[in-house]
């Protein structure tokens, strides 16, 4: 258990009653809006307009989910988002591992300069490239097509840097040299040595990338302007524009858009927490 070991590394002080009280308060604050989304989604507009607001589930959940699913295009949107986030995750993890390995362990001309370029652009806001990207998408005739969202996000400078930092320590240079002496080509080396060594970091990067790609908002709402092929976030923005005036249906849509990641959080919460904390120390 990594948590046991980590706990041992810190102080051994037990938290008092006050610590528990404050943490429980923050837990409620963190979870309440989510639970209340589900409560509101299970009611109707009239009930939401009454005082006091509802604090327990009503009977309209499935009806509202159905309306959101069909009228607000949430079914298509969920499928589109799955395709987009899945492709971006696979691409980012694969390309980051390859490039990260090269930057960590191989020598080539301009290595330092290229790495500096990658790191230097990491902090540049996405707003800075959105106008030319839009012009490109319009030029290629990709408006309202999913590749306009996938291709610009398919690689990430952060991913390359993250994998490089991990592989510098996790992959001993002697192992690579041994494989070389055995006559392994680069392809075999990557398949049999680099990928196995990088697997934990690939999993972390994959989870972080998936969450980010699933929740991306700024670029999709510009690229998918007509809303013919919306991602979940674009469809939710449509709900906010009042295409569906019923608040409980809007909440049903918000619930549908959040549920997949919430389930992932219940299943992999521990790993995601570990990944973020590990990334914090490394980054």
């Amino acid at each position: 258990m990594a948590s046991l070991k980590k706990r041992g590394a810190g102080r051994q002080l037990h938290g008092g009653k006050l610590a528990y009280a404050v943490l429980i308060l923050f837990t409620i604050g963190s979870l309440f809006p989510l639970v209340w989304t589900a409560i509101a989604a299970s009611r109707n507009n009239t009930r939401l307009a009454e005082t006091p607001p509802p604090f327990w589930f009503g009977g309209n959940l499935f009806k509202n989910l159905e309306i959101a699913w069909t009228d607000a295009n949430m079914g298509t949107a969920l499928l589109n988002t799955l395709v987009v986030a899945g492709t971006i995750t696979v691409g980012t993890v694969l390309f980051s591992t390859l490039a990260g390995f090269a930057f960590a362990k191989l020598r080539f001309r301009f290595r330092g300069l290229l790495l500096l370029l990658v790191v230097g652009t990491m902090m540049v806001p996405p707003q800075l490239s959105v106008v030319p990207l839009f012009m490109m998408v319009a030029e290629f005739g990709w408006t309202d097509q999913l590749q306009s969202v996938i291709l610009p996000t398919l690689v990430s400078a952060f991913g390359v840097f993250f994998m490089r930092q991990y592989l510098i320590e996790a992959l001993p240079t002697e192992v690579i040299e041994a494989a070389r002496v055995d006559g392994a080509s680069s392809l075999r080396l990557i398949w049999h040595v680099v990928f196995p060594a990088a697997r934990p970091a690939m999993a972390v990067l994959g989870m972080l990338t998936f969450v980010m790609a699933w929740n991306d908002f700024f670029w999709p709402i510009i690229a998918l302007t007509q809303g013919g092929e919306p991602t979940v976030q674009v469809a939710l923005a449509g709900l906010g524009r009042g295409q569906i005036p019923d608040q409980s249906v809007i909440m049903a849509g918000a619930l549908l858009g959040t549920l997949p990641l919430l389930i992932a959080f219940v299943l992999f919460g521990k790993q995601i927490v570990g990944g973020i904390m590990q990334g914090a120390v490394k980054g």
Partner: protein
Amino acid sequence: MTDIPSDTRTAAPSTGEEGAAPRARAGAPLADPAAERRRARRSRRYRWDMKWSPYALIAPFFLFFIAFGLFPLLYTGWASLHRVELGTPTDMEWVGLRNFSRLLEDEFFWNALRNTFTIGLISTVPQLLMALGLAHLLHYRLRGSMFFRVAILTPYATSVAAATLVFVLMFSRTDHGMINWALGLVGVDAVDWQNGDWTAQIAVSSIVIWRWTGYNALIYLAAMQAIPNDLYESAALDGASRWQQFRHVTIPSLRPTILFTCVVSTIGATQLFGEPLLFSQGASPTGGSDHQFQTLGLYLYEQGWFNQHLGRSSAIAWTMFLILVLIGLLNWAISRWIRRSA
């Protein structure tokens, strides 16, 4: 690695398909010409592999990076010096710095700049302070500490869009909204969250705070766990209370992490877009009826995709970038100053 001495290069991978036993060495010192050619071919392939595979490995990343990252980044600067309309983005008319000068005369630009600053301040400061406190509590030995960690991180899984829609409902203006109802319980009158100047900014900030506090708490927690235990032990021996330990051991050790989160949160705050967009009635890009919570990100979107001036939009993007660079320099100066005074 490219210049391995030639003997290792040929000796190791020479014979046998799987790099197996050196067949040639068992035979005559001069093998037959066919085997010699094969060996030469292999060694050539190996050298070729060693020389070019690094570039092959970084090529996919750099192809996408240049096409969809670097090129647009630079092209924005070019576009900002032109008049570009949304309908005909390929017709560009040179206007020099006019987009920038018009921006400086535009009161909505200054308004958006001011709003970005205030919303950034009232979302970042409480967020990081609470995260620090939470991390301190999570650092104690606790039952169910993993549960608390996952629970406070859960808002991070929620998208801007979903979170904002829920908060819009909770911040409903009349007294049946969740928050106004709760305020009513303690005897405070209903607040018109959306149309007020400060109230709308506070409401938008609360969405940011809700989504990011747990994430930052985990980053602080990770840094706290890296602090060596004997620092606390010696502090305790000197009779330092828990609060004194927190102030004089924890906080100084966390200084680089705190600076890091400040930078990241500041960058996030300058880009604020989805929350103010969806918080306004009908998701309009004006940031409220009076532009009271229009941020720079939203102003860029309004100029480009509603007023159809992509050139001006690019100028706003570059201005945002310059502001970020300025903040970065300021941050660097402050961290130097802190390090020197410490």
